[in-house]
Every structure is written in C-alpha cells, then in structure tokens.
C-alpha cells in the first residue's frame, strides 16, 4: 500500500489516460452539473444484476459497472483481464491483482481536483425548497483535513516532546497569586482562559500585533494562555497583566478591591481596542469602524440588544439595536421594583431550574429583563408617528445572541439611599435556552403563534454554563472566587492560588455573581 501505487497501475497510464480518468470522475463519481447527475442516475446500475447499491464499481478499461459486494466486478476483471476499477461512492482505485485499493499520487491528485470542482458547482446551485432554509447552505470550499507543510514537519521533528490530553488531565488549570486584593482580576482571568474559542484563538497564534510599544494587552493575554497551558502546576504571578490593566484602565488602578464585573468590561474593551491588527480585512480595507469590528472579542462576546418603544396612542414602534457584552439583571430585594412572576411560567420549565419554595431563577430575571415596561407620564417619548409626546412602553429582547453570554446579577446596590449587597439566592441552570427571550420569539407571540413545543431541531439558542464568579462577604470587605468547567463535566474551584475539584452541586448552589454561558452549537455565518 505504498503511495507510489502498485505497478499494475502503470499499465493504465498510457495515451490520454488523465483525461479519461477525469471524465469518469466527473460523470460517475462526483457529478457536479445537473446533466452529469441525470446521466449518473440513469446509468449507474450493475450491468449484471441491475442493482444500484452494493458498492458499485466502474471498470477503468471499458464501460462496465458491477457490484463489489456481489463480486460482479470481480468476475468482469477476471474475464476481460481488466485489472483496475474505481469505487463510485468514494473514488478509490482498486487493483484486482493486488486485491486491495491502491493509492497512486497522480490519480489521487486528479481525484482531489475533480471532487473540489464538483463541490464548488454544487454549492452555488439554487436551493428551491424552503424546508432547508434553516440549514446554512453557503459551503464554498469542502473541508479537507490538515496536512503539515515541510516547515511544520521540521519543527515537529526538532521538538519531539508531545502532550497527550486525556479525559482526566488538568492542563489549562493554574492558580493565580493574589497581588493585593486582586482576586477580582484573578477570577475573570480564570473565566477567560477557559473560554474555548478564546483559548483556541490564542493557542493557534492568531494575534498579529501592530502596536509599537510593549503595552499590548492582547499580547499579554497570549502569554497568559501560554503560561496556563504550559503544564506548570505552580501558581502564576500575573504582575505584568496587572500593570497593563492599571496602564490602560486607570479607574481600576490601586490596591483596593475592585468590582469583577467592571474589570471584565474594561478588559474586554482594552482587548477589543488592541485587536485592530487581527480584524478580518474586507477587500483590503481596514475595519476601523467600531460598529463593524470583527475582532475575536466581538466575534465571541458581542450580542445585539433590541429595544422597542411602542407609542400608546398610535401603536407605532421605534426600534433600536445596541451591541452588548453582558446582560445586567436586577434582583428581587433591590430598590427597583421586582415583580414576582408566577413560578413555572413560560421559560422556567424549558430550562429545568429548581423552584425551591419560591426562590428566584435566572429565567425569572431574564423574563423580568424582557418584559414590557410602561414608561410613566414623566418620561414621555416623542413619537415619530403622531409627532407629539406620548406615553409609551419599552421592551428589551435579544436580537443577536453572542457565542459567549455573560450574565451579571446586580448584587451591589449603589443607590443614593444605601450601599449594600443583595445576597438573595438565584438558581441558575447548567443548560440554558434563550429562545423565549429572542426578538423573533416575541414577534411570533405577537402574531398569535405560541411556541408551545420546543423545536428540537433548532439548536441555535442553547447554551451551556462554563464559568461562575462568586463574591463572598460584604460590600466593604469581600473575596472573589470562581468555578470553571473542564472537559464538559468536570468543575474546579479557583480561589486565587488554590485550585480544588468541585462538584456540579457546589457550582449550582453557589450564590452566583457573574455567569458565563457558551453556545452549544456553532453555525457558520
């Protein structure tokens, strides 16, 4: 089975063999056009028994199709001494003398090219059926597996050390030294280093730095990922990261305890700004527009929040869509009115949260977040329809969901009256379905279509929990810790430099301050 093929193939390689082989591929193996498909449909049946199944093969020397399973093609090969046949399903070349499939470099090359051609032809044909509107059909290039280049082979030979990832390995887990009330930074770093897409981006070296100075936060993140996945088990000291954060986000500088949520937003903002070199260039133009940035931070974290303001008089709706990186949710017990919604209502049953004697759930908070709110008479909006100031209702829904959704439970109250921490327990699920909170769901509800059954085939709004940041203590003195998920179902508690194994129950029973969810299924845009 050498890549040079068998010697019997050489008997075939005479005259115009390349063109003949191409025709066979185009007509009978990978038919790209409607015409070749029709011909294939009609003619690809066994010349002996008429079946179209049974691993049909075509003789390479004459026009004969025969079943492989029923040995019809073998008979033909023996009788006519035609030693080569091609598998019509996968395009492999079979040699009857060697009694196995053979891999000739030239023939493989032709096969690859023909397959790519047919694929391209097919991808651009129109799809008439509306039944397939949910599928992404824009597949321009067929997926091919990675083959190393000469340079890469060289690098692999010079660096023989290999790391094997098993289901129990703890690579990626590392403690972080507290540099003086920096636990707020440590737990966000833990959450970010365990965001799968971010990890993949940095470990595959996708950041091309365009900053002249040494103060690029993205480069520092890249270094951080290298430290985390190096396999070292001793805690890491993130002094350079801290320094860069102080440089770029002055309001977070100093040794006082800061808010982890504020740090998250500031960090994402700086990373987004420093990612300019990595934005995908459209037609050679640089994407400097902050609204259409395509950096990795935007790709992962940015969602679209739709705000609909409905005029109570003319019922005209004015819609705006704003980008967001996180969703801040009010909690019961805060000074803003929290209407206790009936338990088990729309949404909670989908997400299977526990309603222990009326405890609040994350979906309760989301329902409150997306409920229509009457803006009182003191907050009249100028209506574009009736051209006057009228009372209106405002409603928020999700227009576009980010790949990673971060929920911020507003536990720290800083109102004029008081400053306190709300410690109400909010239960949150391991798996979250955001469908009830989408702008599209609201539209179908308004059009009278009630989505009673959960659409099993539409997986686009399903999320999995992968990190939780918790705050213990009071507003004056407290401590941040985080839970992060490895390998789909293993959880670890990160308390600065100390990493311990945690159970799912530990995670779900915790108070919850920042909740990080990751989309379960990723689709092409």
């Amino acid at each position, binding site marked *: 089975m050498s890549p040079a093929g068998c010697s019997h193939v050489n008997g075939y390689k005479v005259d115009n063999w390349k063109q003949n082989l191409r025709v066979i591929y185009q007509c009978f193996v990978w038919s790209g056009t*409607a015409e070749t498909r029709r011909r294939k449909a009609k003619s690809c049946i066994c010349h002996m028994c008429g079946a179209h199944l049974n691993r049909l093969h075509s003789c390479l020397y004459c026009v004969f199709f025969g079943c492989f399973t029923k040995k019809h093609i073998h008979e033909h090969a023996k009788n006519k001494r035609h030693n080569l046949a091609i598998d019509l399903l996968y395009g492999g070349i079979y040699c009857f003398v060697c009694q196995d499939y053979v891999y000739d470099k030239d023939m493989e090359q032709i096969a690859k090219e023909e397959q790519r051609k047919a694929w391209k032809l097919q991808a651009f044909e129109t799809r008439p059926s509306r039944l397939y509107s949910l599928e992404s059909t824009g597949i321009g290039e067929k997926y091919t597996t990675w083959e190393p280049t000469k340079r890469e082979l060289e690098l692999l030979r010079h660096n023989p050390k290999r790391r094997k990832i098993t289901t129990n390995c703890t690579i990626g887990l590392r403690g972080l030294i507290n540099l003086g009330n920096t636990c707020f930074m440590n737990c966000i770093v833990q959450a970010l280093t365990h965001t799968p897409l971010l990890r993949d981006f940095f470990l595959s070296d996708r950041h091309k730095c365009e900053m002249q100075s040494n103060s690029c936060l993205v480069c520092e993140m890249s270094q951080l990922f290298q430290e985390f996945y190096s396999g070292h088990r001793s805690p890491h000291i993130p002094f350079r990261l801290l320094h860069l954060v102080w440089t770029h986000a002055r309001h977070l500088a100093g040794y006082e305890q800061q808010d982890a949520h504020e740090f998250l937003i500031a960090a994402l903002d700086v990373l987004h700004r420093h990612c300019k070199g990595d934005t995908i260039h459209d037609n050679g133009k640089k994407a400097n527009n902050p609204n259409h940035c395509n950096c990795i931070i935007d790709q992962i974290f940015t969602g679209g929040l739709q705000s609909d303001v409905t005029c109570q008089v003319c019922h005209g709706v004015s819609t705006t869509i704003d980008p967001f990186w996180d969703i801040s949710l009010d909690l019961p017990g805060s000074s803003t009115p929290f209407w206790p919604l009936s338990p088990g209502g729309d949404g909670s049953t989908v997400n299977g949260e526990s309603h222990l004697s009326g405890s609040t759930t994350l979906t309760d908070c989301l329902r409150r977040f997306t409920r229509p709110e009457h803006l009182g008479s003191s907050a009249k909006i100028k209506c574009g329809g009736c051209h006057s100031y009228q009372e209106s209702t405002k409603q928020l829904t999700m227009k576009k969901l980010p790949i990673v959704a971060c929920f911020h439970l507003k536990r720290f109250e800083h109102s004029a009256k008081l400053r306190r921490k709300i410690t109400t327990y909010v239960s949150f699920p391991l798996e979250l379905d955001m469908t009830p909170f989408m702008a599209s769901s609201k539209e179908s509800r308004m059009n009278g279509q009630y989505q009673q059954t959960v659409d099993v085939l539409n997986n686009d709004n399903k999320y999995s929990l992968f990190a939780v940041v918790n705050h213990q203590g009071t507003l004056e003195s407290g401590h941040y810790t985080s839970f992060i998920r490895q390998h789909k179902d293993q959880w670890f508690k990160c308390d600065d430099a100390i990493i311990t194994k945690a159970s799912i129950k530990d995670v779900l029973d915790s108070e919850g301050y920042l909740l990080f969810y990751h989309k379960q299924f990723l689709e092409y845009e």
Partner: protein
Amino acid sequence: MSKDSQMRAAINQKLIETGERERLKELLRAKLVECGWKDQLKAHCKDVIKEKGLEHVTVEDLVTEVTPKGRALVPDSVKKELLHRIRAFLAQHATL
C-alpha cells in the same frame, strides 16, 4: 426486480438527479462527526489495524470488521433526522 426494489431504484434516481443525495450525504457526515461517531469508528479501525498488522491489512478487512459496529453505533436521533429529510423530499416530489 421486485416492486420494492423498483421503487428504491426510482427514489435513488430522483435523489441523484436533484443533487439531494449529495446534500444528504454531507448532512449525515456532519451529524456523525458531531456526535462522535467518526472518532469512535476511527479508534476501532486503529485497533483492527494493530490486530492484523499494518503490512497485511486490506481495505476489505476493515470494511468487514467495521461495518457492523458502524451500523450499530449510529444514534437514533441521526437516523430520525435523515428519515425526516428524506420524507420531506419525497413529499415534495410526489410524482413518484
């Protein structure tokens, strides 16, 4: 040919002509990768090759060994979805 296999052949023809067969194949491929079936079978193939020895094993050996396991390991959800798509296709081309 029995009426059943005639019907099969006719459906197959229609699937190939409209290009639906290729689309279904790609859908199936994606689903089987997603649910880990491809990795499971790949591991099984490696075991078979180790058993028979790299120099002596043929594609036929692999096909014989791996096919029954491969058929058994396909998840029901994948079968359901494919059936659903094929039925939808047939409903659309009701002239058969």
